[in-house]
């Protein structure tokens, strides 16, 4: 049985191509679905092994990043992500996709992403430390301790209500806090570990040559530029623990 990944696009999502590519490199049979297509011809979420909400600027980030997309997922698609996860599905939200998961309440009430502390968008590479508990709990993070990834966001400052602080599971932390996030938290994992979201872009380090330090090894005996980058580990982890898709009759899309 194949393991399938659905990668959402439309309404301002813009990282679907490279995200689908990362899924494929990790072994998934990946399909990019435009939201409008899923709304017109609804499909049961259980037909996929991994649902990815990629990065982007859905609805132009208006009314708060990810919030209108979350409304669309809730009211137009009617997906029940916790139930999907409980049935063995995996959900990954990257950057804007993470913002949408937060807005959907996937990590509980009282969690929010605010504008970066300095009010500015920031693109840079940053070192991340995996939370030891999350490493055990989340299939996405198995065997990972530190990773360097690019961040590219303007609203990545994670804030919690007092009640939420106690229950929400930090999955990984910035080694130097770029945005004022509480506890330097860069990503969250739900109680099952199967719904996972993060602000940095793992699909942005799927090839080794995407790392800014890559060229130091050129033209000596460095790795080929197309070899797997460390960000791909996350997708490979997901592939390893994903359950096969229940529906193999799906049409071939884009």
């Amino acid at each position: 049985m194949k393991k399938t990944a659905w990668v959402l696009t439309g309404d301002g999502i813009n990282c679907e191509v490279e995200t689908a590519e990362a899924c494929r490199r990790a072994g998934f049979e990946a399909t990019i679905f435009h939201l409008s297509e899923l709304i017109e011809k609804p499909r049961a979420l259980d037909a996929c092994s991994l649902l990815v909400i990629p990065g982007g600027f859905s609805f132009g980030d208006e009314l708060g990043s990810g919030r209108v997309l979350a409304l669309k997922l809730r009211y137009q698609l009617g997906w029940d992500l916790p139930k999907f996860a409980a049935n063995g599905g995996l959900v990954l939200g990257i950057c804007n996709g993470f913002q949408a998961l937060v807005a959907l309440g996937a990590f509980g009430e009282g969690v929010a992403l605010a504008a970066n502390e300095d009010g500015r968008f920031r693109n840079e590479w940053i070192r991340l430390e995996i939370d030891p508990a999350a490493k055990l709990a989340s299939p996405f993070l198995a065997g990972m301790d530190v990773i360097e990834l690019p961040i590219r966001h303007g609203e990545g400052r994670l804030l919690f209500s007092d009640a939420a602080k106690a229950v929400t599971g930090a999955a990984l932390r910035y080694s130097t806090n770029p945005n004022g996030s509480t506890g330097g938290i860069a990503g969250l994992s739900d109680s099952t570990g199967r719904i996972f979201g993060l602000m940095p872009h793992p699909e942005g380090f799927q090839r080794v040559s995407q790392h800014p330090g890559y060229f130091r090894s050129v033209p000596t005996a460095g790795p080929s530029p197309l070899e797997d980058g460390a960000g791909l580990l996350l997708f490979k982890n997901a592939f390893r623990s994903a359950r096969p898709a229940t529906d193999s009759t799906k049409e071939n899309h884009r």
Partner: protein
Amino acid sequence: MSQGHKLRIELYPCARDLDVSAKRITEDFIRENPGLSESSFRIDTAKAYSLAGQASGENLESILTEILVNPVLDQTTETRGWKIDAVFIERGFRPGMTDNAARALEEALAIRLGKNPVGQADFHASRLDLYRIEAETPELLAKLSSFVAHPLLHTTRAFTRDTWIDRSAPIASSDTVSILPASQASASSLAPIFPIRELSARALELASKEHLWALSLPEMLAIQSHFSTLVRDPRIAELEVLAQTWSEHCKHKIFRATIRYREIEGEGPIASPRPEIPTETKGLFKTTIKAVTDACPKPWLLSVFSDNAGIVAFTADDAVCIKVETHNSPSAIDPFAGAITGIGGVHRDIIGTGFGAKPIFNLDVFCVAPAKYDTDRPDGIFPPSRILEGVRAGVEAGGNPAGIPTIAGALVYDVSYLGKPLVFCGSGGILPRKILKHPLVDCAAKVIETGDLIVMVGGRIGRDGIHGATFSSLAMDASDKSMSNATVVQLGDPFTQKRALDFLMVARDRGLYRTLTDNGAGGLSSSVGELATLSNGARLDLTNAPLKATDLRPEEILVSESQERMSVAVPPASLTEFLALSKAMGVESTALGEFTAHGRFEVLYRNETIADLDLQFLHEGCPELKLEAEWTPTKPAAFPTGATVKGVRENLLALLGSENIASKENLLRQYDHEVQGTSLIKPQTQIGDHRSPNQSAAVLVGEGANRVAAVIGVGILPEYSRYDAYTMAQASLDEAVRNVLASGAEYGTEDSVLALLDNFCWPDPVSNPKYAADLVRAGYGLRDAALTLGLPFVSGKDSMKNDFRGTKNGEAVKISVLPTVLVTALGRIVDLERARTSEFKQAGDTVFLIGPHRFSLLGSQFERIGLTHPEARGLPPSDWAAAKRLYTWLGSERSDRLRSCADVSEGGTLTAIVESLFAYRLGFEFEPAWSAEANLTDYFGEGLHSFVVSIGQEHEVDLVREWFASGIAFTRLGKVTASRTLVLPKDTVPVELLEAAWRKR
């Protein structure tokens, strides 16, 4: 809730540190007002949304709260106490401006209520920004109040503590919003006549100015004579169409003009070798730029100059297109709005290239005055810091949300840009060379058949964006009413554009349309008017055109431009499927007439003809311009020959910290340069906390396992225009070419792909023969260089009235930009393993200067920042034959042994070396034999053709032998060391110190 009633929700940040808008306004205000402290004022911001509309049985207020309020971040009531003398400013968009947040709210409501979000909205939302301002003095309060308002885009209301309580009361009837479009224009006035036949020359000139047509007297006379022959007067809409189509912006009349050129003897530096300039040039574009391309018939040139962007074949399957635009005038009057529409406009150009392309990168180049002129500037213009931050933010807001990486660019500071900044926005796209559905149609072919439908796709037509083309064809005059004319400024909407792009790419691959173009300057009048030449006619019916404002006149509908709107030719058989797909993907598309073969451009509105123009006259009837050009060599104003020469260390530190050389990391990292996952060489190399300088060029890889990469570099050296625009143009071209070669571009074989773009930004050459002469010299400068190198131009653009007239301290001032050419190079790297970066990588490597390096301090950054030098000088000479030998070597696999390669540019050889040390914490030691004889020109001189390269010792002997045999000049400069110091003849400088100087800004 019934019509006419409004709901209003206010959102206040829960905590002071969440108020990042206030933080940024405070920062910006203090930057412009040095000496002011943060304790002398305080700004708090909040947002409000108001909603009017029809709905019954819904608890709208609680739904609005669900949509808008994030309890962790927002509270809906204001809890901080008021200071008695604070003011509250409420700011909203002017009617007809794009209000993206309000559109999102309307759509969110529709989603929440289970309605189709596209098309007629049931609600009308608006978004308001609220500012509470407290200040030490009433003057400061007034200054801050005007700082937050942008009168071109917004309307504002001010409140005191006592009047704030009544804030939600309707203030004007227009504020209580009608939802359905209502006709404002009465039938009798749909197609007013302009009595051109009876007007005197003087009256024609006045009318052109009054209507913002920017038509010259000979052009008005040509129109008069055309209509006299027709024995009728034109309708206003016809004049609007002619004015847009004949604008300098669209027609490039100056580049088509016949120019008489002469030189007057004078004392001053002249390009070396001295160029031969003909005394008459019939069309500078044809004679110089296009002549080069005609002489380089490369098989990979798929489309040059005719389409929105040049198209080059990149692989067997894919083509790449590229275009660079300028948005100078709009950026001068509203930097943010000007720049976001600039970048949005060039995306739209790419989307409309060939049969449609997907944008894959952005580049941006800004020319602004140094920050020290913030407090020393003419009346009525913005401080340069505000312009820079505004245009930076505009390109960010247009690029990042669109999901297009901003990968290359430049920032040039010069006082000549104080009156009008230059804002270059470029973009590249990828398109398949064939689509499966129509395997016989080439991507570059633009074909329309009679009977194809005109379909408008994307954003609605608004009052914003009227007269952009004609406005930008005029000089800026602070007293002119056009400066305060709201209709020439738009706000881009990258979200709507992105949706339209997603839709058009699917429609293209399904073969649902024939071709398309963008609704840029001149709106439908230009897009349909241009497409009409493909079928030889069009009948455009504006009656059903979707509008943002209901009171637009038909001629306004016709000429209003937008970043989010495309005109598409759809075969009748595909229309139903095209429209259905569009609707499903959240994009508004409307059929507005058809393409014909009658040789006419007809426009109808509510069954009345508002324009009926002969296509031939529309496109060919514009009279040719004649220009006089006169050139005299210019002696440098203040030849800096002071005797006090500081040491190398002091000069180097001053240069590294100077604004044109210092690190631009704060600016760069606010652009997403990695989205789409294609970046191979990024704008800066960042290793931990250490960053290298800007890379020479940006390199993008294709998708998947594709090994071909694209490399994009720019060159812009306006400084040399103070002396000779010929050298300026050549140096700019050379820099662009060297940048891509340094990064690994192929060059020198029959099929190596390397294409150039030119952008001219000039002060008015029509009224000033000196500027006309500079233009001629720059044109021939580009031609002579590109012909020798065998590099074709594929696209270009010019902006010709970059002058500012105003007053300062009661005196009249005129500021003209330095004649500026931006050259952009698009190259190909055949295998991505051949891409290379500029920084040194390994201690022990040997560093060489290669190329025919004849440097000079004249026109260099060393001279610009006022460092004094007694050394002899002339303009740096060119040697294109020697350059070609070197470039051919660099562009081949023989150069793969270089471990790093950086072009020698601003700051000269020593700056190039020092910038190469930062990324990997390395040091450098000069060859004693070299530094014993080195003078300031050797260290800091700038010029053409040369590179600093590092190589592993094992290759040294071979490479030296090879350079010698190939006739490539080289000099051994020294060695990379692990010591983190720069070793000069009598001085050792810690690299930390140099890096700190470079990063301080």
